[in-house]
């Protein structure tokens, strides 16, 4: 069964080992722009990023730097103007369940219950009724929603809705999970609980994730690798570095505050800090 949890191992092990396989998700000199009031403006230009199997990559960047554009390219919602976006080495042609997106909000179908929402995704994937039910129950239990399986969306809190989205995404076992600020609309306490649950699942599944956020603490808690973007029209990758802290992490875990501070400094583009961190990070 596709939902069985794999044995736990340190998340960074796979990506650290030299693997000949192509990256799970790869942006290869991607340019994407939009026709706006002032003619064509690039959102991303010559954008390069490889995400390895089992890796959790966080893109952090200011508003308008092209984070969502990158995610939409990976999801197949938009096509690159030039360059290529590859999943397992194959170019992406259209949206598909192998690259499931967790949206910021309002992405559940309100005429369905929590479980029916998960089941519908499995139905689209061609699973039999019985399997739909077993798999959706399993994942809803894992996100601690077994008591709310039959609740309609309007009866769920914001945090519960995002849990259902998580359950739905994991249930169809995508190659890459794409997440665009999925926790941004939640309060800090709910977020902290979700970070814990989410990491537990990740440690079991070793799911490959591309995660977008404004929040540097969130990046420090969740990421194996942080990619800091900056600028706009086009946005560019300013720096990236690995986060090798033990999991599960929380706000209080040693090292998290430092990583968050470093990310913030990179975001703010403080040259002094950039130089200081340049030695052990991979600043560009």
């Amino acid at each position, binding site marked *: 069964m596709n939902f069985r949890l794999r044995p736990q191992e340190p998340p960074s092990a796979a990506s650290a080992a030299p693997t000949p396989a192509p990256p799970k998700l790869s942006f290869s000199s991607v340019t994407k722009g939009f026709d706006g009031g002032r003619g064509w403006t690039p959102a991303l230009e010559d954008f390069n990023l490889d995400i390895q199997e089992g890796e959790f990559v966080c893109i952090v960047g200011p508003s308008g730097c092209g984070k969502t554009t990158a995610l939409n390219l990976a*999801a197949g*919602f938009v096509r690159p103007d030039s360059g290529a976006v590859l999943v397992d080495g194959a170019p992406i042609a*259209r*949206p*598909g*369940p192998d*690259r*499931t*997106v967790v*949206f910021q909000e*309002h*992405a559940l*179908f*309100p*005429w369905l219950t929590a479980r029916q929402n998960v089941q*519908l*995704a499995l*139905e*689209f*994937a061609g699973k039999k009724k019985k399997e739909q039910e077993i798999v959706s129950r399993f994942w809803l239990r894992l996100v*601690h*929603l077994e*008591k*709310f399986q039959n*609740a*309609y*969306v*309007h*009866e*769920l*809190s914001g945090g*519960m809705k995002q849990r259902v989205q998580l359950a*739905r995404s994991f249930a*169809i076992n995508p190659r890459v999970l794409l997440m665009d600020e999925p926790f941004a609309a939640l309060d800090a306490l709910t977020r902290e*609980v979700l970070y814990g649950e989410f990491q537990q699942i990740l440690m079991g599944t070793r799911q490959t994730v591309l995660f977008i956020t404004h929040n540097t603490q969130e990046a420090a808690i969740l990421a194996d690798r942080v990619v800091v973007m900056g600028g706009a029209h086009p946005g560019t990758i300013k720096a990236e570095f690995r986060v090798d802290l033990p999991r599960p992490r929380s706000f209080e875990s040693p090292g998290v505050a430092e990583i968050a501070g470093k990310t913030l400094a990179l975001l703010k583009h403080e040259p002094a800090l950039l130089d200081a961190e340049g030695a052990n990070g991979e600043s560009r």
Partner: protein
Amino acid sequence: MASPANASSASRSKRLTLVQRWRGGIVALVFVTLLALVWEAIVRADFWPQYLLPSPATVAARVLDGLRDFTIPRAIGYTMRRIAIGYGISVVLGIALGVAIARFHLLEQSLGTLVSGLQALPSITWLPLALLWFGLNDTAIIFVVVLGSLLAIVQATRDGIHNVPPLYFRTARNLGASGLAMYWRVVLPAALPYIITGMKLGWSFAWRSLMAAELIFFTPGLGHLLEVGREFNDVAQVMAVMVVIVFLGLVVDKAGFSRLEQMVRTRWGLAGMSE
């Protein structure tokens, strides 16, 4: 974590609306009683002769008579059969056409424009055509009923689909929904609040068209009962039948559509937050 406060506040608000619904019913009842009293007062004042303006008691007695000798139930039976067929065709055809128009650009520009244009025609203006095409029979009546209600349902379905949040399309495509599954499982349910509003509007159009058509055709039904009352100069019967027509319309609207609409709006997260 999951807070049970959510669930309990939801059920409390449900109880609250139940009380409000009851209050609405009581207000309506008091109002109708007052109206009957005013009516009675006017009758007693002898402005008009009794055979032109019978008292509410006389009309009520006529309704009871009609129920007892079965003329009213039988008429209701004929009328309901026609509206069930006509309205049923309208709903199925209307939703199908609405989906097709929303889906295909060419249809939007051709059929879509035609639908908007034809809505300007009061449905009873189809009657002469129906007579010429089908003759003096039920088919002609049902034709008028269908044309009376179809366009409202087509339009509402099309509008509903146009107003489906783009994020639902995105999510569905992202989850791998294609073609038919996308429409059946996502687009139509998402458009349902609009479709129900269209069906409600369509129902009232169908009801009016049917009454108009039955008045003109010599065929059993509530409209015909009205016409019989007129022929015999029997104002009490005319009024009794009118009361029955109003009552049936109210029951279908309040017990059927309004409840359905409310349930769907709540579940779809569209209910007003103002309470």
